[in-house]
């Protein structure tokens, strides 16, 4: 029998908790929960060695431990600092920490484009949430932003490096989950970019998970591209009998259409179970899935806007009063409207003008498709966005 490990007592924002040895400050704060939890953009519980890159989780250690109660001289990254017995941590109680986070957000946003109205990640973007919570209202940056052409890495995933904050999560996913890494970070410093080396497309069965771990809209689902906004789709928990993965997913529905399939995420925005590409990209019919029920969404989330819970529909009186005769509607909106006439879920890519005008099967093509040989963008140009 292994002897019971001594629990370490750590105090975060005057809340004490006892945790196992080897727990990071961030994990200890998550065990407490609530407002004291530092935000994290690069750290991911399920990915080894992740964290320590974005600096959004900075906290102040007011006392190192019982044995050595001196404070740490600088703010530390809570995701990579392990707790010591008797450690005292200040997260939201210290104004210096909040000021530092604000500065980090400003740095993260230096090169990040303000294209949330176009970006598919808007509404579930960690950086969007973070900048609303901690960021300043305006930028002080006056120079030209770093831009790239968007490229398709593989048939399902689109990479728009302009939005990337270099958190390395996708690199770790490719390394640790798919075990076949074909992309990584090229160049260094301000020039560094996520890229697939020598025009290799990613075709591992689990590579779709890079979309879920991406905290911004740099890696997005091409099968969902521009289909709808996240907050107009309704999340449902569903599962299927999948030979490769566990098959427990979240469906994002619009009416009876499955517009998108993602992995289920926990309260920290982290994937619970990795799902395979077949589940994610190819099972876009309701009949493919056994639906468990609607996902619980935070009441304050934008995904909840316009979704009514506990709706009580009044009984139709006319049919009852008129002896079963249905009311003669003067207009049925479904006969008049031109919206929702195309089955978008059946398209493998984004819709185009032709999709809505005669050719419902046509999808958009990307001129800078990596398979055609124009993957890395050395010129740093972005023809898709003339406004930056």
């Amino acid at each position: 029998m292994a002897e019971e490990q001594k629990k370490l007592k750590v105090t975060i924002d005057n809340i004490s908790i006892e945790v196992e040895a080897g727990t990071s400050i961030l994990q200890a704060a998550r065990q407490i929960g609530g407002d004291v939890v530092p935000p994290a953009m690069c750290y991911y519980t399920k990915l080894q060695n992740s964290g320590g890159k974005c600096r959004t989780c900075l906290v102040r250690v007011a006392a190192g431990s019982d044995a050595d109660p001196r404070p740490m001289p600088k703010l530390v990254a809570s995701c990579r600092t392990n707790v010591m017995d008797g450690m005292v941590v200040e997260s939201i109680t210290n104004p210096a920490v909040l000021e530092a986070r604000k500065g980090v957000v400003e740095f993260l946003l230096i090169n990040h484009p303000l294209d949330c109205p176009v970006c598919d990640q808007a509404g579930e973007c960690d950086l969007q949430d973070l900048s609303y919570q901690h960021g300043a209202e305006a930028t002080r940056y006056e120079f030209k932003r770093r831009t790239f052409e968007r490229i398709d890495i593989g048939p399902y995933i689109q990479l728009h490096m302009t939005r990337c904050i270099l958190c390395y999560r996708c690199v770790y996913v490719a390394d640790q989950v798919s075990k076949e890494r074909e992309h990584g970070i090229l160049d260094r410093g301000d020039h560094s970019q996520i890229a697939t080396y020598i025009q290799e497309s990613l075709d591992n069965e689990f590579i779709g998970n890079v979309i879920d771990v991406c905290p911004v809209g740099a890696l997005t689902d091409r099968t969902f591209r521009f289909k709808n906004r996240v907050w107009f789709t309704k999340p449902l928990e569903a599962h299927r009998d999948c030979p490769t993965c566990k098959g427990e997913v979240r469906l994002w529905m619009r009416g009876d259409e499955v517009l998108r399939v993602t992995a289920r995420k926990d309260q920290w925005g982290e994937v619970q179970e990795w799902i395979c590409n077949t589940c994610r990209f190819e099972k876009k019919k309701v009949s493919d899935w056994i639906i468990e029920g609607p996902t619980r969404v935070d009441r304050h989330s934008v995904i909840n806007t316009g979704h009514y819970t506990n709706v009580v529909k009044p009984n139709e009186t006319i049919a009852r009063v008129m002896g079963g005769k249905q009311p003669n509607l003067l207009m049925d909106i479904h006969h008049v409207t031109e919206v929702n006439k195309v089955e978008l879920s059946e398209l493998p890519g984004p819709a185009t003008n032709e999709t809505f005008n005669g050719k419902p099967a046509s999808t958009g093509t990307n001129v800078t498709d990596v398979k055609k040989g124009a993957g890395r963008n050395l010129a740093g140009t972005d023809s898709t966005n003339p406004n930056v």
Partner: protein
Amino acid sequence: MQLTNRKKELDRKPMNFWERLYLPAILKGMAITFSHIFKKNPTINYPEEKRPFSAVFRGVQILNRDEEGRERCTACGLCAVACPAEAITMEAAERQSGEEHLYREEKYAAKYEINMLRCIFCGLCEEACPKDAIYLTQTFAKANYARKGFIYDKDDLLIPNPVTDPEGYNKAKGKIGKEIK
């Protein structure tokens, strides 16, 4: 308790002889009627004459274009989510190469519909728009014989192109961006 001084007690006393004569009351009423001939006319001859709108009048929406005539709307859906009447729907499409002169950004609204039967002209769509794409103008929604004529699509809503039709563009734009910010 009396809230206003306009309340009048009903007089239920029997009428006296002068009141029962009936004709004086008729003459009194006619005097009021004819006196209105000499008063200023409160109505106007609508289609020929028009009253000025207030500067913040909220009329029917337009979808704006930029100075090069490209559609500004990127189908971000913020107007639809802001709309309390749930009158706005849209479908987005990706801009293809060769369409750069038509649409400002890489995503655009291929279909955009406002149900004018639902619209309450609150102006929240205009307020929500991050791209200066939707504005409430100083015009009414036109009368129509059928209900389906009130489902406005992009053809009804788009402002004339400032490059090919600058006159129509300026007329449609009206005071937007000049007096009202």
